[in-house]
C-alpha cells in the first residue's frame, strides 16, 4: 500500500476504477429509487387531487430538510460541483452527497419538474471527493478526481459514456484538453459497464430510425435552431429572474419557498400530468412521432414555467433533463409544422424532436460539442450529425447573443460565487511567455573562469544567468553559486564546473528550469517557484539547447499590470 501511495498515477487509475464502479451503482440506485417512488406517488391514471397534493407536500418536506440539514444539496448540483472544484480544492462533504441523494430522490419522486442528471453529477463528484480525501490524496489529486466522478455519474444517469466525458471536460472543467481525460474515460467506461451489468443494454430513449429526407430539410433544422435558441433564452432568463425574486424574499421563508414550485407543478399536473417529473416517457413518445402540435407546444411552455418555478424556489433537482424535454417539445412542434407544410421533403416530427433535444441543450447549457455527441450516442445514428450541428450551433449563437452568461455561471453568480469562465480561461491561455520574454543581457560561456563571470555580472539585477557552450544552453547559473565560489575555493574553476556542482546539489531543478515561448505565464511562474529562479531561460521546442531569450519575474508581473520596480523587488528580497 505504501508503494502504491508513492506511485500517484497507479493510485489515481485504481481510484478512477473504484469511483466509476461505485458512482455508477449509486446513480443507478438513485434513478431506480426515484422512478419506483414516483410510480407510487402519482401513478399514471391516478386521481387528479393526488397530483396536486403530492408535489406540494413533497416540496414542503424537502424544503425543510434542505433548509435545516442539507443547504448545499439545493438546486442542480453542477454549479456547486464547479464551485467545489475551482474554489474549495475539490472538497464536497459526505453530508452533501447524502443530502443530495435523499432530497433529490424525494423531490423527483414527488413530481418536481426537474432533472436527475445534475444531482447525479454532484453525487458522483462528491463520492470521488470523499474517497480521494479519505485516501489521503493531495488537494491537486482530489481536484483531479472530481471530474472523474462527474463523468461516471453522467455515464450512468444518461447512458452516454462519451458525452459524459465531454461534459465533464467541456462544462465542469471548461477545458477539453484537461489532463484528467484518461481517468475520466476510464471511470465513465467503468460506470457504463456497471450500468449495463445491472440494467442490461437498454438505451435511454428508444427511437425509430432517423434519416435526412432531402438536403433542403437542413433549412428546417436551421429554423429549429432559431426556435431552440430563442426558447432556451426565454427559459434561462425566466429561471434567473424568478430565482432573483425568491432570493429577495425574507430569509425566514427559505424553507417554505420550495412549496411555490411544488404547488405550481401540482396545479399544472392536474391538467397535464406529463409536465410532472423528469418526463422521459413522454419524450420517448414524441421521439417516436406521436405528436399532436397543440399538446407539444402546451407542454413545452408549461415545462419551461414549471421547471423555472421548481428550480428557482429552491427545490433539489437539475435542469439537464428538463432542457431535453423542452427541446423535444420544441423540435416536435417545428417538425410537425414542417411535415404538414412539406410532407414529401421532411422527416417525421420525431426526428425533429430528437434534434431539438440537442438544440435546447446547446442553447441552455452551452456545451455544443457535448450536445452533438450526446444525441449521437442516444440515437447511435451517424446521419443525424449534420442537422444536429446546424441546429445546435444556431441555437448556441442566438442563446449566447441574448444571454451572455451561461446558466451555471449565472446561477453561481446569484449565489455570490464567481466561477472561472471559459473566456477567463482562454484569456489566461493567451498570456504566453512570448509576450513577456526578452533577450538575455548577459550570456556566460561555459569555459568562462568563475572570477571573470563574477566581474561580468556584478552590476546585474538578475539572480541567474544563462550559460552556453558550443551546443547551446548549458544551464542557468544562480547568483548564490557564483557568490559561493571564492569561499569554496572555486575561483580557479570555470562556470561549467560551478554548474556541474550546482546540478549535483540540486539535480531536479534543471529539468523544470526552462520554458518555451508558447508556455503560459502562469506555468512560467510555477516553474520559477519550483526552481527558485526569478529568471528562466526561454528555449526552442525544436532544440531545447537553443536559447531564445529569458523571462523575468518582474516582466511577468508587469505583463499582468502589477508594476514592481527592480529596487522594490531587491528590497523585498
Amino acid at each position, binding site marked *: 500500500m505504501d508503494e502504491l501511495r508513492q506511485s500517484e498515477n497507479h493510485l489515481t487509475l485504481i481510484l478512477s476504477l473504484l469511483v466509476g464502479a461505485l458512482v455508477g451503482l449509486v446513480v443507478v440506485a438513485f434513478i431506480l*429509487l426515484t422512478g419506483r417512488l414516483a410510480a407510487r406517488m402519482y401513478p399514471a391514471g391516478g386521481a387528479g387531487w393526488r397530483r396536486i397534493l403530492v408535489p406540494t407536500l413533497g416540496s414542503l418536506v424537502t424544503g425543510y430538510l434542505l433548509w435545516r440539514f442539507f443547504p448545499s444539496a439545493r438546486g442542480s448540483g453542477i454549479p456547486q460541483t464547479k464551485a467545489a472544484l475551482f474554489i474549495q480544492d475539490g472538497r464536497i462533504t459526505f453530508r452533501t452527497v447524502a443530502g443530495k441523494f435523499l432530497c433529490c430522490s424525494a423531490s423527483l419522486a414527488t413530481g418536481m419538474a426537474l432533472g436527475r442528471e445534475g444531482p447525479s453529477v454532484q453525487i458522483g463528484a462528491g463520492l470521488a471527493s470523499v474517497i480521494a480525501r479519505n*485516501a489521503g490524496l493531495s488537494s491537486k489529486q482530489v481536484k483531479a478526481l472530481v471530474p472523474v466522478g462527474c463523468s461516471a455519474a453522467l455515464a450512468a444517469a444518461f447512458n452516454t459514456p462519451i458525452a459524459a466525458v465531454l461534459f465533464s471536460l467541456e462544462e465542469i472543467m471548461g477545458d477539453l484538453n484537461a489532463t484528467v481525460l484518461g481517468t475520466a474515460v476510464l471511470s465513465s467506461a467503468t460506470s457504463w459497464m456497471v450500468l449495463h451489468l445491472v440494467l442490461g443494454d437498454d438505451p435511454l430513449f428508444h427511437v425509430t430510425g432517423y434519416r435526412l429526407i432531402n438536403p433542403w430539410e437542413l433549412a428546417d433544422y436551421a429554423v429549429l435552431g432559431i426556435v431552440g435558441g430563442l426558447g432556451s433564452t426565454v427559459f434561462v432568463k425566466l429561471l434567473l429572474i424568478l430565482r432573483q425574486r425568491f432570493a429577495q424574499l425574507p430569509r425566514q421563508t427559505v424553507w417554505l419557498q420550495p412549496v411555490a414550485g411544488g404547488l405550481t407543478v401540482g396545479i399544472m399536473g392536474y391538467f397535464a400530468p406529463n409536465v410532472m417529473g423528469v418526463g422521459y416517457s413522454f419524450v420517448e413518445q414524441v421521439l417516436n412521432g406521436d405528436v399532436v402540435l397543440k399538446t407539444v407546444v402546451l407542454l413545452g411552455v408549461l415545462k419551461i414555467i414549471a421547471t423555472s418555478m421548481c428550480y428557482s424556489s429552491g427545490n433539489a433537482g437539475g435542469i439537464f433533463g428538463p432542457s431535453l424535454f423542452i427541446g423535444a417539445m420544441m423540435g416536435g412542434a417545428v417538425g410537425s409544422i414542417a411535415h404538414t407544410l412539406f410532407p414529401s421533403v421532411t422527416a417525421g416530427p420525431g426526428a425533429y424532436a430528437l434534434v431539438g433535444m440537442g438544440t435546447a441543450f446547446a442553447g441552455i447549457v452551452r456545451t455544443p460539442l457535448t450536445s452533438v455527441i450526446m444525441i449521437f450516442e442516444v440515437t447511435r445514428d451517424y446521419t443525424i450529425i449534420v442537422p444536429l450541428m446546424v441546429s445546435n450551433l444556431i441555437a448556441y449563437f442566438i442563446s449566447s447573443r441574448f444571454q451572455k452568461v451561461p446558466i451555471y455561471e449565472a446561477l453561481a453568480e446569484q449565489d455570490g460565487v464567481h466561477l472561472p469562465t471559459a473566456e477567463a480561461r482562454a484569456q489566461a491561455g493567451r498570456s504566453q511567455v512570448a509576450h513577456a520574454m526578452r533577450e538575455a543581457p548577459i550570456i556566460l560561456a561555459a569555459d568562462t573562469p568563475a572570477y571573470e563571470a563574477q566581474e561580468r555580472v556584478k552590476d546585474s539585477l538578475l539572480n541567474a544567468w544563462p550559460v552556453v557552450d558550443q551546443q547551446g544552453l548549458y544551464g542557468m547559473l544562480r547568483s548564490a553559486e557564483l557568490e559561493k565560489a571564492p569561499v569554496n575555493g572555486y575561483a580557479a574553476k570555470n562556470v561549467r564546473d560551478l554548474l556541474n556542482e550546482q546540478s549535483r546539489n540540486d539535480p531536479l531543478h534543471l529539468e523544470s528550469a526552462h520554458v518555451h515561448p508558447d508556455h503560459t505565464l502562469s506555468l512560467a511562474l510555477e516553474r520559477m517557484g519550483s526552481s527558485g529562479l526569478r529568471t528562466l531561460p526561454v528555449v526552442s521546442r525544436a532544440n531545447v539547447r537553443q536559447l531564445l531569450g529569458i523571462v523575468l519575474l518582474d516582466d511577468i508581473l508587469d505583463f499582468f499590470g502589477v508594476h514592481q520596480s527592480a529596487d522594490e523587488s531587491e528590497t523585498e528580497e
Partner: protein
Amino acid sequence: MAKPASGLSLLRTFSLTIAAIAVFFLIDTVLVRTEKAESRAAAARAYENGMRLMGQGRYVDAAGEFEDALALARENLTYTLALAQALLAADRLPKAEATLSDLLQRDGTGGAPNLAMARVLAKEGKFIDAVSYYHRAIYGRWTSDAARNRVQARSELVDFLVANHSTEGLLAELLPLQQEALGDLATQKKLAFAFIAAGSPARGAELFRDIVRREPQDPDGYAGLGEAEFARGNYRAARANFEAVLRLRPSDAASRQRLNLSNQVLALDPAQRGLSREEQYQRSLKILELAVASATECLASPMSATTRDLIDSANNILRKRTQPTRQVEAMDKNMQLADMIWQIRRSECGATSQTAIDLVLSRASQ
C-alpha cells in the same frame, strides 16, 4: 489540505469503497428485480386489455394499450407483434410498418411478423414487397401450429394475387396449397376458384367436382363447377351446373345471369356439336350482323376508310344469299370478318362486359 495518509488509511478507504460497491450492487439488483417484476406484470395487464379491445374492434385504443405494454417490456416480441397488428387494423400503416421493421430486425425469420408485414405492404399497395414477405412468412419459423399457419399465409398470398389479377406465379402457389389444404372444404373452394383465375379451369373443375361429390346439396359447389366449365368453354356443362344451383338456391341472381349467358352462347355458337351446315352458316351470319350493329352503334362517324370498307363488306354479305355448297367457306369468312369488326369495335369503344358474341368470337379465334 488533506494530510498524507498512511498505507493503512488507504487500505481502509479501499476496503470501504469495495464494501460500498458490493452493498450498492445488491441494492441495485434487488431494485432492478422488483422493477422488472412489476413492469412485467403491468405489461401483461396492458396486453390483456389490448387483446380485449381488439376483440371489441377498438383498434386505436388497443394500440395504445400495446404501446404501454411495450414501454414496460421493450424486448417482448409478442407485444410488438400485437401492436403492429392493432396499428394495421386501425389503418395506421406507416407506424405499423415501422414497428414491424423494428421487430423483423430482431426476429427476421419469424413467420408471424413476416405475415403481418406482408399484410401491411399489401394494404399499402406495395405488390412486390408484399409477395416477398408472404413468401418469408410461408417459409419462416412458426412457434406453434406451423402447418396451419403456413397454409393460412399461402392462402392469403393466393387471395392477394387473385385480387391483383396476377396470374403469374399464382399457379405456383396453388399447386402446393392444393397438397397442403386437402380435406378443408372452404380452402378447396377458394383454391378451385383461384385455379380458374390462374387460367387453369380444368384443375378448378376437378376440385369442384370433388366438392359436389362430397356435398351434393352445396349450391356453391355447383356454381363453382359452372364457372369452371364456363371458363373451359363447356357451355352445355356450365348450363347444367347453373341450373343445378338455381334448383338448390332459386334466388341466386349471379348464377341466373351466368345461365342466361350460357344459353346465349349455346344459341349463337356455330361450333356447337350436332348443328347442320345450314344452321352453322346462319349462326355465322347472325354473329356478323350483331358485330356490325354493335360497331355501327358505338363507332363515331365518320369512320375510318378501313372500318367503312369492312362494314360495307359485311353488309354486302348479309344482303346476299350464299349457295349451300359454299356455305362452309362463307361461314369461315363471316366469322373472320365479324372478328375483325369486333376487334375494331373493342379498340375504339372499349371492352364490354362479357357478352355471348364476345365469348363466341374469342373461342373461334383460339
